[in-house]
């Protein structure tokens, strides 16, 4: 069979960069295949995708050498329009690609550009919409849709073209866990119905492997370092080596000393079959673990009492929220999109004023205090660092919040330097911010909040879109701040973050606080997982499979063990 996509000695270098981003790629993808391309940030995986859909070379400037053919045409000599009728691309950012004023218009966008006549267009649009189950939302504006729904609209928008190849660039990055799972299921359904070739670019392997994948391409530093079946890759240690998180159940089985070469169906938690001997190994590993006692502080730092919230003339967003947060806690707020997580944080910080109820900080009622007054005690770090940064130099950005506070230049400099040291940015202090990576920018924004000396720091999705290495960098840093006494609250969709780094989780669904317990207890509670659109951890499945009667404790043991392993390595 002829490959539908074929890279031959292919290299690409962006004009603004010194070195090529893709180096000597040789890769064939065959019709009907489902391929996962993974790699750490900067490995070149998204660039590879952009070569296939034609954004390279038609939208990004750079030098190509070697050859790439897609469906029989060489991309260099083609056009983005010719390629777009063959390759349908669903990009990462759901708002950037939803260009229509309503669902129907956005799905019809490609047809409009192709001058399809109105009757035919309406028919084809409806057909595509029903393939992704969005047909009863045709007149909705993007502002009325969730992230998952917007993504489905994007899928429908490329399906109108009868494309032969579907390309997904980090489809899971902006979704809550349950929605991510249904996205993966939907991709599988579309592939089965239409027979298209599917390419998924993603570093969250375990979530993608929920459905069968034929092949995984692992990239590092612009090269393909592995091209094999999922089973073979999971049995190896390559993922870890190249900074990608292994599926948790795989890591656990490796810890337990199970020989993965003899285990069937290891590419998904749904298909794995453990022998009695292997189950015994897992149980033995569990029996060997010892548990640490956690010290208990009993002084409450932040109390939220009977908080109700609604925007003018719209539905109520928060219903009677009550919670108490202790000094020095590290806490996750989880739940589906729009469940009220971010709103609660905004209420706590005083950004939203129009609420009923009380906010008490350190035994003092701050309900009527201004944003500025609360900011001295409670800092808020936005998800996108670019929305916070307004200075071009690191020092100035961090010092910004101290201006007009009556501190002298000398005192300001001292405090900024102290914070920069804590954040590992001291040696960069005179750098322009534009020279920093995303993760470093995130640190700058955290530093700019930290410098004001708050006791509580609230972070919205601190690790969204980050690969494993950057995730670990950011989280270890937050962990350190926490150990130095800061109370940290994080809004997150990352179930592993919740398990690994927090003592306690507040679970939200539809504006109500549904649960308040440890991350492991949350993820071992199938009903709660379902209610709040979370996703079970595969460790829970392993515990069930092996007959361990306290899955919560099993998960806790795994997390503790993993932390120890990691500190040995570093």
């Amino acid at each position, binding site marked *: 069979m002829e490959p539908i996509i074929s890279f031959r000695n292919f290299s690409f270098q962006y004009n603004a*960069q*010194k*070195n090529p981003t893709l180096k000597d790629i040789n890769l064939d993808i065959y019709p009907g295949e489902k391929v996962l391309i993974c790699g750490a940030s900067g490995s070149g995986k998204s660039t590879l995708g952009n070569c296939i859909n034609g954004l390279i070379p038609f*939208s*990004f400037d750079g030098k190509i050498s070697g050859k790439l053919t897609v469906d029989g045409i060489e991309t260099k000599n083609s056009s983005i329009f010719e390629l777009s009728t063959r390759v349908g691309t669903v990009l990462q950012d759901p708002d950037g690609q939803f260009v229509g004023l309503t669902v129907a218009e956005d799905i019809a966008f490609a047809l409009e550009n192709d001058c399809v006549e109105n009757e035919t267009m309406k028919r084809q649009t409806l057909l595509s919409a029903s393939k992704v189950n969005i047909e009863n939302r045709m007149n909705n504006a993007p502002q009325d849709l969730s992230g998952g729904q917007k993504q489905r609209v994007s899928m429908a928008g490329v399906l109108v073209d009868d494309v032969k190849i579907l390309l997904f660039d980090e489809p899971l990055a902006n979704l809550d866990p349950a929605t991510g799972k249904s996205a993966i299921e939907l991709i599988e359904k579309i592939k089965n119905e239409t027979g298209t070739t599917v390419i998924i670019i993603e570093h969250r392997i375990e979530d993608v492997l929920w459905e069968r994948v034929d092949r995984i391409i692992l990239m590092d530093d612009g090269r393909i370092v592995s091209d094999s079946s999922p089973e073979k890759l999971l049995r190896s240690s390559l993922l870890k080596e190249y900074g990608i998180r292994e599926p948790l159940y795989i890591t656990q089985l490796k810890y337990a000393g199970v020989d993965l070469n003899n285990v069937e169906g290891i590419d998904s938690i749904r298909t794995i079959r453990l022998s009695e001997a292997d189950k015994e190994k897992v149980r033995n590993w569990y029996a060997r673990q010892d548990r640490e006692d956690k010290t208990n502080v009993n002084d409450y730092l932040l109390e939220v009492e009977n908080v109700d919230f609604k925007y003018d003339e719209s539905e109520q967003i928060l219903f009677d929220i009550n919670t108490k947060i202790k000094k020095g806690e590290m806490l996750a707020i989880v739940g589906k999109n729009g469940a009220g997580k971010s709103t609660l944080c905004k209420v706590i910080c005083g950004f939203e004023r129009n609420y009923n109820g009380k906010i008490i900080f350190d035994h003092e009622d701050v309900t009527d205090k201004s944003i500025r007054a609360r900011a001295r005690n409670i800092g808020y770090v936005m998800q996108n660092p670019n929305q916070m940064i307004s*200075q071009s130099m690191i020092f100035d950005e961090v010092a910004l919040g101290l201006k007009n506070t009556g501190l002298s230049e000398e005192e300001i400099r001292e405090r900024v330097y102290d914070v920069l040291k804590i954040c590992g940015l001291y040696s960069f202090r005179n750098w322009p911010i*534009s020279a920093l990576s995303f993760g470093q920018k995130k640190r700058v924004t955290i530093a700019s909040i930290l410098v004001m000396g708050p006791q509580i720091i609230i972070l919205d999705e601190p690790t969204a879109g980050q690969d494993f290495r950057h995730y670990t960098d950011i989280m270890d840093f937050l962990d350190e701040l926490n150990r130095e006494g800061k109370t940290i609250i994080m809004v997150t969709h990352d179930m592993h973050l919740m398990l690994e780094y927090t003592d306690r989780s507040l679970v939200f669904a539809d504006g109500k606080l549904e649960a308040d317990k440890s991350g492991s207890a949350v993820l071992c509670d199938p009903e709660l997982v379902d209610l709040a659109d979370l996703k079970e951890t595969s460790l829970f499945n392993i515990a069930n499979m092996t007959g361990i009667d306290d899955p919560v404790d099993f998960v806790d043991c795994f997390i503790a063990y993993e932390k120890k392993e990691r500190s040995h390595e570093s």
Partner: protein
Amino acid sequence: MKNNSVQKVVATGIGAALFFVLARFVAVPSGIPNTNITFQYAAQAVFAVIYGPVVGCLSGFIGHVLTDMSWGGVWWTWAFATAVYGLIVGLFAKKINIRDGNFSKNEIITYVLANLVANVVAWGIIAPVGDIVIYKEDANLVFTQGLIAGAGDFLFAVVIGGLLLYGYSKTIAKSGSLDKE
């Protein structure tokens, strides 16, 4: 990124949306009663400098008409003046290579000059003359209005627009200078 025609379509749309949001929802008291500091012209100038005269002109015009429409009545002469303002700043901006990350003394002088000419033409000539011809308004009144509007817009577009352009120029990686760390 290549600076292609689709990008200009999008820049026009986003520029107009930004103009609308700043004109409609963002008013900062200036200290003079009933007069607010307005930012839409600063934003329009930034778009004109980055994307050129056509985007500067159309984004302002569309933004202005949509803003007027949301209040219930379009002031065509002033919308037209807004369009001319963006056009002129955009034409001057051919001398400012902001995309290469340059925004220092010479560029700033050009930018200030561009705003001076654009404001004089737009608010000193087009808007008032239009009002005299079409609305038969008193020449003294419309020239006074034009002078106040022009002086204010000049100040805000130069100071705020200048700071924005300076900030933007600092975010641009100089060609060939990025290296993997």
